[in-house]
């Protein structure tokens, strides 16, 4: 399977990278992380306006008509930048509507989402229940209950809500009976919270797309984590070249040097792995469940460990709030836990492999 990026794709990614470098330097990132909503929202809106809002929406609805491979590759760069905002939630909402929605639903939502005028979000987990098989909410015909760990609570105007049997429903944020409870979040670039439904009007989408949406979510979490860990390694490598102790850069100490080589080695193949996983989703969806479970298990776990080790490697400075390390560390911690931990997905991958 070829999952190398074409020149066009690379050019596009470069554009996104440039945008992120300009708008999301450390000082602004720290402000967004510390709760400056204006900066967070400016960075995120700008991303959508680059055309990313409709990345996976069909062209007839104003989107770019691209696949998960491209979405994941962009997600990596967003993770690399540590950029604030519910990017992953929005992409998944677009993907769900594009693949599971009726023509009317697509026409109602996708053009605005593609134009960056409407932000979407997915509301999937119920407590720790991440699997569509364990979702219990139902729309019969109105929706009651709650969804947890929802990313984009503040920003989204439309929510794609997971229902029993892997069905999905559309709920507007302004619908009567909808309540939002922001939580004290570990990853403050992407705060989460609970959305409550009290007899809320909703529209169920015709396709039961929950299982596919899960695969996409796992793949994007992997890509984001890979980006975060790659950034951490890049930063600690640079730091080690300039931080002097005992009259030489610490990178000149073999123990440090080899640890950095080990980190780089652990990171290196994760890019190909998530891209391959995304390409499988796009091209041979039959194999997607297993591939996505395995990638999520591996990459979010390894990335979380790498971010941890890199943070430690800074010495005292990495342990301060003012340093950036924990922004990515927390991001990796979030991805580790979101939509099921490495351990459960590893067990699931083993089942799916028929072991």
């Amino acid at each position, binding site marked *: 399977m070829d999952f190398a990026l074409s020149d066009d794709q690379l050019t596009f990614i470069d554009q996104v990278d440039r945008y992120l470098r300009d708008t999301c330097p450390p000082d602004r990132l720290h402000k967004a992380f510390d709760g400056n909503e204006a900066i967070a929202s400016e960075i995120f809106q700008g991303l959508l306006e680059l055309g990313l809002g409709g990345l996976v929406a069909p062209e007839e609805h104003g989107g770019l008509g691209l696949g998960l491979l491209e979405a994941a590759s962009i997600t990596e760069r967003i993770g690399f930048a540590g950029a604030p905002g519910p990017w992953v939630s929005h992409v998944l909402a677009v993907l769900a509507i594009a693949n599971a929605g009726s023509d009317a639903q697509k026409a109602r939502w996708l053009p605005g989402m593609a134009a960056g005028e409407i932000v979407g979000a997915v509301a999937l987990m119920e407590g720790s229940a991440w699997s569509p098989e364990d979702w219990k909410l139902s729309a019969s015909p109105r929706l009651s209950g709650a969804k*947890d760990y929802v990313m984009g609570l503040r920003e989204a105007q439309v929510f794609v809500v997971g229902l029993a049997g892997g069905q999905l429903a559309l709920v507007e944020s302004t619908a009567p009976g909808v309540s939002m409870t922001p939580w*004290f979040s*570990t990853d403050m670039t992407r705060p*989460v919270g609970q959305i409550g439904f009290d007899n809320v009007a909703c529209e169920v989408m015709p396709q039961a797309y929950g299982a596919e949406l899960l695969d996409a979510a796992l793949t994007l979490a992997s890509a984001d984590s890979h980006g975060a860990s790659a950034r951490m390694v890049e930063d600690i490598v640079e730091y080690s070249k300039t931080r002097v102790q005992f009259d030489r850069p610490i990178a000149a100490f073999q123990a*440090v040097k080899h640890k950095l080589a080990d980190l780089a080695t652990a990171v290196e193949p994760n890019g190909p792995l998530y891209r391959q996983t995304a390409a499988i989703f796009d091209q041979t969806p039959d194999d997607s469940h297993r591939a996505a479970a395995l990638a999520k298990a591996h990459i979010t776990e390894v990335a979380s460990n790498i971010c941890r080790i890199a943070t430690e490697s800074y*010495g*005292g400075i*990495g*342990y*301060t709030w003012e340093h950036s390390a924990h922004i990515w560390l927390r991001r990796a911690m979030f991805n580790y836990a979101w939509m099921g931990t490495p351990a459960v997905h590893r067990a699931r991958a083993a089942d799916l492999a028929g072991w």
Partner: protein
Amino acid sequence: MLAPVASEQETFRKEVKAFLKENWLGAADRDASAFRKKAVAAGYVYRSIPKIYGGSEQAADPVKAHIIREEFDKVRAPREVGGNGPGLLAPTLLACGEDWQKEMFIPKTLTGEYRWAQGYSEPGAGSDLANIRTSAVLEGDEWVINGQKVWTSDAHNSIFMFILVRTEPDAPKHQGISYLLLDMRQPGVTVRPLKQITGEAHFNEIFLDNARTPKNWIVGERGKGWIVSRTTLVHERNTVGASMGSDHLFNQVLKLARTTELNGRPAIEDPLIRDELGRIYARVSAHRAAGQHAQNLAGAGREGSPAAGGFTKLYGSAISESIGLLAQRIMADHAMAQPVENHAGPGRWVRQYLNSIAAQLGGGTSNMQRNQIAERALGLPRD
């Protein structure tokens, strides 16, 4: 063939228990200082400090010391005052200070009236502590101090500070340092809380801008501050009882595993979690056995490994790290958010996870400990 040392220890333990029963009224007793006076008189606290300075002046006996710690802790009776003063400054003054310094500072430090901040690390001097740049220049009868310190613990509660400064800028790096005492209640000293990765602030940065201290508030000779400060570091690396932290952390994570649901049942029933708990518990047990062994050796007046401090520290760091990682697995989704800040549920373990990163940093990094072990215990070449 077993050594008959156990009975003597047991007799002593009974004495301590009896003392506590008679004198410690339990948590209701708010007058720790009155109790502490009795404990000094009984010879249970400040054992290594002469009576003239407020100590109880007992012969060194790590086994007795350990029994005292254990029995006092069981009933939560106060032992020595916490902080840097009794643990770090007082031994240094005893070893290297002038008599008037001892008289002036030690007694009130032992009662807790004088609290001390430690001014060692700087932004450019972490593991390479001898690289400090904060300068002190003699102007008349005063040292004038300029520079910045980081990771000063307890600075917001302290009125004094012991500080490493560069007094001989032209000398080789280890020979240009002096050890000064400093009153922090002056305009030249600015304390800024250092917010940690967890959001808490247990440490501070200190900015010294023409801060002043009397000429004779120097401990040891001018330019000998590096050696003076080593006295203190040795005290930081006590091996006996070092495993207590591991024990405590393990009990916490065990409780987390018992009280947190993972995949629909208590996490402790998950075979993977159970295996990892067992794996860590074995290391905690080994750590404890090694501590006990060190205590037994000390009790018998025998020498332990020259790098015992490094061993136990490195071992303990690794345990703490493993516990953090296990907590991450158990917390699962709770690691993403807590419904409210400081919630008592599994989510508070996020802080523990982040804190366990500090285990690699505090009191000398793991790499420094590896060097120490390699050089002192294994006889390998120095870097």
